């Protein structure tokens, strides 16, 4: 009787087997719940650190966790690649934009001018103690001559110094061999602009009378005197003045309008007897030269005059420089 009762209380073999089958998975789940909800936070951190440096060390060495992991490194590399790609695209877009602007200016020059302009591509450039010199490749059919003026959309650049087949040697305004007869477009004062090495400004008009009216910011154009440069080509802007060493004369500093360093395509101004500026319908009293060349070389809205330069211009405007 007693043995029968014991047998009845003991679970059957199948039930035991079933319990054993579930014991292992359930204990695993209970273990995870214990880790997540019973274990204190610092103990969890310690356990994680222990696992990281013991059981999972191979994984840590090969792939890792967190910001120093392989995943994070890959994300970083991908991010850098995206940034590099964006930078490349941005650079290409900027280059295209600059090229586009440059071409528009060149086209605008061609449209605005009635003078015969023939283009040439700059292939070499030299700037040094001997002055600005560049070499341009000319592939046109027009016959070029020594001394022809060379212009860019911003203004006069120089003149042809030598011709060797298709290669044209151009001397810039900042060159000891080039002297330009210039005129203040506002006051009509005239002078000879020359390069003085080491001067504060690239070009100087020497021997200007102390009472002559040259003001800072004035546009200076070619006067047409002499046989080389036609009248009205924009040379530069008045930037300042210095007293000459002797006498009551002074020298006027000019900043060239055309940048020799940035010229990529230059134009040779062919002399054909026609006026080199476009005819402009104008009212009585208007200056034909100014109107024409303002149209040909519009005042650069971005012409930079720094505050210091403006200050100098104001000083210059205040009166003649006292002689030493």
């Amino acid at each position, binding site marked *: 009787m007693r043995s029968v009762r014991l047998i009845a209380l003991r679970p059957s073999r199948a039930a035991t087997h079933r319990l054993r089958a579930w014991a*292992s*998975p359930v204990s*695993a789940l209970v273990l*995870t719940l214990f880790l*997540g909800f019973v274990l204190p936070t610092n103990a969890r951190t310690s356990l994680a650190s222990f696992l*990281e440096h013991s059981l*999972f060390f191979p994984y840590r060495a090969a792939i890792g966790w967190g910001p120093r992991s*392989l995943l994070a490194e890959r994300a970083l590399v991908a991010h850098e690649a995206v940034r590099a790609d964006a930078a490349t695209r941005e650079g290409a877009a900027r280059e295209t934009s600059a090229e586009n602007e440059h071409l528009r200016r060149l086209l605008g020059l061609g449209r605005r001018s009635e003078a015969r302009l023939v283009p040439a591509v700059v292939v070499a450039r030299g700037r040094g103690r001997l002055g600005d010199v560049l070499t341009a490749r000319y592939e046109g059919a027009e016959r070029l001559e020594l001394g022809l003026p060379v212009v860019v959309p911003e203004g006069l650049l120089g003149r042809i110094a030598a011709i060797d087949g298709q290669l044209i040697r151009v001397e810039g305004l900042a060159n000891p061999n080039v002297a330009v007869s210039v005129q203040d477009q506002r006051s009509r004062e005239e002078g000879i602009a020359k390069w003085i090495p080491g001067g504060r400004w690239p070009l100087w008009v020497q021997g200007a009378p102390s009472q002559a009216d040259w003001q800072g910011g004035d546009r200076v154009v070619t006067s047409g005197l002499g046989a080389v440069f036609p009248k009205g080509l924009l040379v530069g802007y008045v930037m300042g003045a210095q007293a000459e060493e002797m006498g009551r004369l002074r020298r006027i500093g000019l900043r060239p309008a055309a940048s020799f360093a940035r010229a990529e395509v230059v134009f040779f101004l062919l002399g054909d007897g026609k006026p080199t500026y476009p005819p402009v319908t104008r009212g009585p009293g208007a200056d034909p030269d100014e109107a024409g060349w303002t149209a040909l070389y519009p005042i650069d809205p971005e012409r930079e005059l720094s505050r210091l330069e403006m200050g100098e211009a104001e000083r210059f405007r205040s009166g003649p420089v006292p002689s030493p």
Partner: protein
Amino acid sequence: MLTALRLLAVVFVLLVCQATWIPRIAIAGIAPDLFVALVFWIAVRRGMHWGVWLGLAVGLLLDVEQPQQLGMHAFALALAGLVIGRGSTQLDKGNPFVAGALLFVGALAAESARVVWLSVSGVGDPPLAWLRYALPGALYTALAIPPLSLALARLFGRKDWILGAA
């Protein structure tokens, strides 16, 4: 011994894959879970016990990254191993559709367990997170893993896509 080493190698390769190219095929932040796939393969081939304990081990490996939530991935993958292992003994695991459904149920169990775990910990809104992450994640896992598994099976010269489970 050889089996254990092979399993370790497979786990390692899957971990590398999960850390490298799996994020590239993520859609809206949802990627297939190779660890659920690993648990699925093992649970189907070797049974519930293997599935549960392997899920626990791999889950702990994942949990180490976030000690604050230690046990979450372990619980989720162990639960997936339990569901898949239990289901594989009751159902016809040789049938690809049944196996696919089993994979989906296992993945859904794991994702749901994560959602519940996080909500108990006070992180996230359970219904929204379940709809946003759990369900799509499980679906993506169930859709992406069979072709991958089939490709691997063909690579190793096996005819079934569950790598010899049938």
